[in-house]
């Protein structure tokens, strides 16, 4: 991948990066292109957390089938994140409840956080990038 020709900025600094996924997987390109940034950040050996909130929780839904809209189904990438040492996946309980979803509806193991816990996790981060 041309994007991955540098795997280290040479500084040895490790920062806490949080990626806030707020958008449905399809309809806009944010989720797909956002995932690219997540993978590159992991390649730079940074401390990566992924949060799914608002319609972003739909990105992890089981049974994705994009044939009808003729776009790429990239949901398999979420299952491959472990291979990139990305293991901190969080979903927002309020967003799940509002959409009638539970952890059983999702394709990967996640930690469900309350608003208060989410606030605290966010406060710990050095960099928050929102897609």
């Amino acid at each position, binding site marked *: 991948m041309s994007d991955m020709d540098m795997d280290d900025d040479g500084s040895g600094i490790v920062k806490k*990066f949080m990626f806030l996924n707020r958008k449905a997987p399809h309809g806009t390109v944010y989720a797909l*292109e956002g995932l690219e940034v997540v993978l590159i950040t992991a390649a730079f050996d940074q401390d990566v957390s992924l949060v799914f909130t608002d319609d972003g929780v739909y990105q992890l839904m089981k049974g994705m089938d994009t044939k009808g809209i003729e776009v790429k189904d990239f949901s398999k990438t979420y299952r491959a994140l472990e291979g990139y040492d990305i293991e901190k996946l969080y979903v927002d309980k309020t967003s799940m409840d509002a959409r009638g979803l539970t952890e059983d509806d999702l394709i990967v193991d996640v930690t469900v956080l309350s608003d208060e816990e989410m606030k605290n996790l966010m406060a710990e981060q050095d960099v928050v990038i929102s897609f």
Partner: protein
Amino acid sequence: MQFGILINEGPYNHQASDSAYLFARTAIEKGHKVPRIFFYHDGVNNSTRMAEPPQDDRNVTARWSKLAEDHGIDLVVCVAAALRRGIKDELLAPGFRISGLGQLVEMGIQYDRLVTFGD
């Protein structure tokens, strides 16, 4: 303070690029540094020199080029997002260059703040 800026929306359709410009200009005026600005998603559309807005409107791309020239800002356009949207080297306005997402991650690592403009 060193600010990195991420712009995720194209010009005119969305205010993100305008707000980012005003933020960058003001930060520099106040004595801060903005070493690099990264254009992603439709934000890559800010970089084309082919844009010709009406005379009575602001020229978003030309404004970025000027700010970059005046203050030595590195304007980086994501290669994957650019190719997907038909933005190539030969179309770039002065001051812009095409590179990888690593340049965005570096801003997060090296600068004091990374500020995102977009939806």
